[in-house]
């Protein structure tokens, strides 16, 4: 219990410190996002910017960014404690939370699915290649996937766009849905969203499967040499049972650990993949907010990351000993 409490406190400290760093960083620039936003709109097409100075002053006050930084920091702390992320500068008058929540499902859907798929395929492949005898064709898939895993996701994405969207025209080159498409809880919507998510998801799956396969393979090689496997074999257990219950069961724990960590990164999206495919996820939102130094939106996006990361790390730390019987004893005296 003490251990859990200590871990929880530390998680809170990490989240708080990370939030502080990410709060201060954007304020270190000389830029004035409110003035830039006003100038952009008012001066567009030769509009007059007369009196803009006054407007800037008014709105700096309204957004509270005319206050000294420490006071803004305190306001931020109390606001986020109340789950109030404030109003976006670049998307005024929208609330930050509404944009973050709008973007989250896209990122979670795309990256979460892609991560799970690559995990499932990779882990199975990795396990099978060890199990199957040498020379099986599956054994030759893995080195290929390994080569792909050395390539950044978005570069795979660029090649996929070229081949499947521009030359073959099988899939759309970007976006979350077709133009004017009204999504609902129905089959056409699923098809539409799936069609648009296919290429970006593929670029992640292609690049990530190799990583999962290789680490699973490594685990399986280690596991195969263990005494309980020989024991199982000696007892005359069937291959399938031996494979799933003994080998995979024991080899998969570290895989799951890594999976949880990868999934916690899903919430910030993948800036480049989302950008290459103009996908409306959190990565894109964060990128655009950083470019425009929208203090509130940046903070909103990063806060989701920090909290998810903090919780996942804590849970893993706490649950890991429970998952792996070999470690349980070790954890006792830690």
């Amino acid at each position: 219990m003490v251990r859990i409490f200590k871990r929880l406190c530390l998680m809170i400290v990490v989240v708080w410190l990370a939030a502080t760093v990410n709060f201060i960083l954007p304020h270190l620039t000389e830029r004035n996002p409110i003035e830039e936003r006003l100038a952009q709109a008012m001066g567009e097409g030769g509009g007059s910017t007369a009196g803009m100075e006054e407007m800037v002053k008014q709105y700096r006050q309204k957004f509270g960014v005319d206050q000294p930084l420490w006071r803004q920091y305190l306001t931020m702390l109390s606001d986020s404690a109340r789950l109030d992320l404030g109003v976006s500068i670049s998307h005024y008058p929208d609330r930050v939370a509404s944009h973050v929540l709008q973007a989250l499902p896209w990122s979670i859907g795309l990256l979460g699915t892609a991560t799970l798929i690559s995990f499932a395929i990779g882990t199975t492949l990795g396990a099978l290649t060890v199990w199957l005898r040498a020379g099986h064709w599956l054994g030759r898939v893995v080195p290929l996937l390994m080569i792909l895993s050395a390539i950044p996701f978005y570069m795979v994405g660029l090649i996929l766009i070229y081949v499947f969207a521009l030359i073959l025209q099988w899939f759309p080159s970007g976006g979350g849905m077709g133009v004017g498409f009204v999504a609902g809880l129905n089959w056409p919507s699923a098809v539409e969203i799936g069609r648009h998510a296919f290429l970006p998801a593929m670029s992640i799956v292609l690049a990530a499967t190799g990583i999962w396969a290789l680490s699973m393979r490594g685990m399986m090689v280690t596991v195969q040499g263990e005494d309980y496997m020989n024991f199982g074999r000696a007892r005359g257990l069937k291959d399938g049972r031996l494979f799933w219950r003994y080998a995979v069961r024991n080899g998969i724990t570290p895989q799951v650990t890594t999976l949880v960590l990868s999934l916690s990164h899903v919430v910030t999206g993948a800036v480049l993949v989302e950008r290459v495919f103009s996908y409306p996820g959190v990565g894109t939102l964060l990128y655009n907010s950083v470019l425009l130094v929208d203090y509130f939106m940046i903070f909103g996006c990063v806060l989701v990351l920090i909290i998810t990361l903090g919780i996942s790390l804590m849970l893993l730390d706490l649950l890991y000993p429970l998952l792996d019987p070999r470690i349980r004893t070790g954890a006792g005296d830690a």
Partner: protein
Amino acid sequence: MKAYQGKPPAVYVLALLAIFTACLTAEAAAQAAPPPRERTLVFVGRSDGSPTLSAPNNANWYGFGADIRNGFQFVYEPLFTLNHLTGEHIPWLAERYKYNDDFTSVQVFIRKGVKWSDGADFDAEDVAFTLNMLMENGRTRRDLAKSVETAALIKLVTVEDKLTLRIDLNAPDPRYIYRQLTNYFGLGLQWVPRHIWKDVADKAGFTFLDIEKGWPVGTGAWKVVKTSPTEMILDRRNDWWGVAAGFRPLPAVERIVAIAAPDDERNAQLIINNQIDQTQTLATPSLVKSILDRNPKLTTFSGRKPPYGYLDYSSHSLYFNHMAEGSPFQDVRVRRAVVHAINRKQLIEFAWDGANTPNYTPLPAFEKLQPYVDGTTDLVKKYGVDVFDLALSAKLMTEAGYKKDSEGLWAKDGKRAGGPLEMQPQYAGVGQVIAQQLKRAGFDARFTSTPDSFRKFRVGQSVWHIFGHNGGGVFDTNDTLRMYTTKNKAPIGTMSFFVSRWSNPEFDTIFEKMERLPIGDPALVPLYKGAMDIWYREAVEVPLEQAYHLQALNETYWTNWPSEQNPYAPACLNCFVSGWGALLAHSLKPVK
């Protein structure tokens, strides 16, 4: 700290709720029978590079960060609009205007029978209310856009009768009608319904958007039925006032959809697949060509041939910041050396695939401005503005005391002639070519286009930059020359679109004379020539080339797009005006 413990789960719950509500509301918004695609006009709105529309939830044009280019421009209508391609001044909500003899007062006659979308009459009271609201705000809270400008221009607004309005000005101004009452480019005001706005206390914070209530209330032929971060949908109002008033027939466009498509690639794919009818402004003529090659139904303002678009007013220049302290460009000889280092032919070949024209003046090549351009060709020759000559450039630099350093760049007292050449991303094509040409001539020109460039050169933190003439003249040259007056020379640190930060008392005097002359006065051309003699002598900036608005148009569902043969309006649905979009959407003809 305690609060943080409860927070993460709440975030998750909210996220899940959001997913479901998003699905459900989307379902609810799906209407019984939306108009078919062949009666729907789909265009790409403004998003500034993000996959979401800019400000789709703020219909208050005077509020913070409002952007009316994403659908609201079809809700509001202007008193007058201007087709800059022909110079035609087009009355819309007003029928005509009349100045008094000394241009200190203007009468505006509102058209009869105009109605707001909620059925109320649109009359002189509404216009007066809007103007008074801005004047009062400009003197007190100053948090509405255009309020300070309006307060400075107008002395008094009088409603003479239901349809007649008199505006008394603070100073004689024959161009007032083009500054506030005519909507073109980003100029002109939007009118708000008095019966709704008079009860709003915080007008700056008012978003004027509530679809249930029928807000925003406008006079236009379309009303907003849905807004989301990625699209805005407007449906035709069959009870639009223009039909009963005999102004115009009901437009054929039954539904207008503005969508967000952040990059050229996506725009291209959407229009090639006939999902949209008009793209955003595209980067290069060669890109437009490769798009046209993939779909025979696509065209542009100039047809299926270069320059693939229409002439914009923001001709491009290389600017010097004349107020930058210690800048090598304080020396006119150095500025002249830069003038002679520019090879416009090469620039147009690389940056515009040959489809553009060099410019030696700060003016766009509009028909009405041609007399002014013609009037100064001898000045261009006299000062060698069109001369590309590296030897001449080197000679001027040597005269100015510069020597080439070890890297072959001009330097004086250890300081090189140049610095980061700042510009926005849309000038990257021009900027890379210019930077390289200048480098070859020995200038320390470093192409720089960062997210901060926008601010840097506008507040005067850059020594030189490339930019378009934002707000230049259309029917005469006053709007352009105004950028170089002492009154508009903003100090360093103050944001300004007039990025030369140059002025000259002699130039000011000539300009004051021009301001008092009405548009088209024959005395304007010689005065312009006098002003430009100073401008060229001082080598204030280096004009580069014309600006074209490059855009693909789709004739699969809609025809009668504006073209060189029929330039009835700029072919721009997402421009910052309420006039052009309406002209266009009213004139398109369905194919089926």
